């Protein structure tokens, strides 16, 4: 009877029990991806050489101390050459880009690698092994971006490699999925929002708008959201649509967050705040007018 020796990732660091080389790997449980990484991968894919089907590159980021949470912050491309029977990764390019990257952001380290395509390449296991050695003592995370768009979407999958098979050969690797979450820091959110406006237009270009216009857009969005919620609630009340207790509780929680301030207190606060705003606006306008006048007087003199 043949037996399969499966090494599943466990909470504690796991050691491969066999005579071959052992790498103590602490396995990741959750991974966060920054939007820069996704756009970078897409850009690399767009710029690939004519005969290439897929592209690969290195993922850089930070890890929590025990290696369980991985945050992928940036990436860079590594040229590689793949035929049906061999694969070649340009390691010197990888090393030099790594050195340059370290100079710019010292905190980041190699956390894994990415590739594009709908399924793993034949050589994914080998490349995974190479990156595991680079990212030692932690395991390497593999991010696969589905640029072929099966299922009609650009799927992003994160996975980890773990050894499988009777002996610890580098080609034997099972890729286990890893839960991932996209993380949007505030500043990037505003950039993404501006970029997202360009999706609507024909040429794919959107202009940068002033703060006031942005506020107007956000208020419109909020109004639309409130409309949707009120129609839903009314429908439920009249019985037109089914009630969902989860959503109902959530809405109740959300509305409870709106603070109720005593009306008199609110109106005094409102007035004083209003006066502050108007005063600041007046003074700054005055300063600007004075600068303008001073400048023109200088020129006459």
């Amino acid at each position: 009877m043949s037996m399969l020796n499966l090494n599943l990732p466990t909470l504690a660091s796991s050691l491969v029990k066999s005579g071959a080389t052992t790498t103590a790997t602490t396995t990741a449980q959750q991974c966060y991806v920054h939007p820069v990484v996704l756009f970078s991968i897409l850009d690399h894919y767009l710029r690939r050489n004519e005969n290439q089907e897929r592209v690969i590159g290195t993922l850089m980021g930070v890890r929590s101390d025990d290696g369980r949470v991985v945050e992928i912050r940036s990436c860079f491309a590594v040229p590689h050459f793949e035929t049906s029977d061999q694969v070649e990764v340009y390691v010197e390019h990888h090393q030099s880009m790594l050195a340059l990257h370290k100079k710019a952001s010292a905190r980041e380290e190699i956390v894994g690698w990415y590739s594009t395509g709908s399924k793993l390449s034949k050589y994914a296991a080998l490349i995974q092994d190479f990156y595991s050695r680079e990212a030692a003592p932690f395991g390497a995370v593999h991010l696969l971006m589905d640029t072929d768009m099966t299922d009609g979407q650009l799927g992003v999958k994160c996975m980890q490699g773990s050894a499988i098979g009777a002996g610890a050969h580098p080609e034997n690797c099972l890729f286990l999925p890893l839960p991932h979450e996209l993380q949007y820091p505030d500043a990037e959110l505003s950039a993404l929002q501006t970029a997202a406006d360009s999706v609507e237009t024909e040429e794919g270009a959107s202009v940068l708008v002033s703060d006031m216009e942005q506020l107007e857009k956000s208020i419109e969005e909020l109004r639309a959201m409130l409309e949707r919620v009120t129609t839903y609630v009314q429908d439920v009340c009249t019985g037109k649509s089914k009630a969902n207790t989860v959503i109902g509780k959530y809405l109740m929680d959300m509305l409870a967050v709106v603070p109720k301030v005593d009306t008199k207190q609110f109106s005094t606060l409102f007035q004083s705040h209003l006066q502050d705003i108007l005063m600041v606006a007046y003074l700054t306008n005055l300063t600007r007018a004075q600068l303008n006048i001073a400048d023109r007087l200088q020129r006459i003199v």
Partner: protein
Amino acid sequence: MAGTTKQSKPMTALLNEQSELSAFDSSAIPKQLRSVLDVEKVSALTLVKVDPLAILKIVKHARESYPTSVNGQLLGLEVDGVLEVTNAFAVPTQPGSEEDMTNYQIEMIQCLREVNVDSSSVGWYQSTRLGDFMQQPLLDVQASYQISPNNSSVVLIHDTSKSEQAGNLSLRAFRLSQVYQDLAKNGKFTTKELADKGLTYGNILEELPIQVETSALSKVLLSELQWPTNAEQELLESLQRPSSFNSKLRAKRMADRSAISDDTESSDALDSNLSGLLPTRPTAYLSRPMCTNALDLSQSLNGSGSLSRQLEAISELIDDHIHDANQWMYWKRGEAKENNRRQQFVQRKATSNAARVARGEQPEPELSEKELDRMFKTLPEPSRLDALLNTANLNLLTKGVTQSRGPALTKMFMAQALQGSE
């Protein structure tokens, strides 16, 4: 164009067959990029198109090193007066020396070229903290980039805190104006020169409009992020988690209240209450990466913090401005006094000469201009450039504050409406 193809043929005949250089075939280049080949052509820049990848890289780099300002290179191509920025990379903040910095940039560009990234530098970017970026080093670096006339390069200024608070990306593209460059060549910034050439504080940099252009795949990605296909299921799952919504906000409100203990303005108390009005990190519950910071009614920690800093900076700059004006007036008075003495001397000479002639003696020789200059020395006029930069910064800051008051006012009325009161 035909000439170049004819020339390239004999050249490739000389080269080895196995060599990587292929015959230069201009028909392989798409029509819209033909103008790039013409190296002699100089077209004025009218527009800057930035790829979201470049923007995200700039934003990330600026955010990580906030509040120190950082800079880096922009890569792309200039086509017919439109500058397309396709990529950007960060430059380390503590380079060993000038050489290290240039080596780093050269190596980076070479590495990027291997993966087919545009390898021509089209400018640089800088992050700023309060919005007063008009400093001498910026002008010097930009001048070095703009040296050759067809070297079109811009500087992109990004304001991190403003992007975060207003929920609107703050990115501006500038070039040095021709007026400034002419004056900088001479290095003389006297009042007369400024008036002649017409250089004012608004004139030093000229701003270019920016457009964000996305490729088709990026559009797919963006719509993916906004409306993921299994949104409903994910949303229901996340809603079932026990009231993480409220506990998070309650914790935030506690933090807000303790942080404003040294602020005695009563309006801050109002704001801390309202800070719980909208979740600050909505993406776990909304399916789109919409930035709701524009709707964030709290002006306590972030808002008034930055406003008071801006006002402090403004008052300091006003002090400097007055100081500069006083310096200049002092010099002007000194010059006027010297001129006065000179006039008087000449007059006295003239009258004494007339008296001597009347007495029948020889008049003294007239003193020439040069000798007069030697006798009555005036200091050269101090350079007005610093004052000009100061004024420009002041203008930027005050404009920023004024512009931020509009949304602030609107948000206040929104809070009033939400209270449902009169």
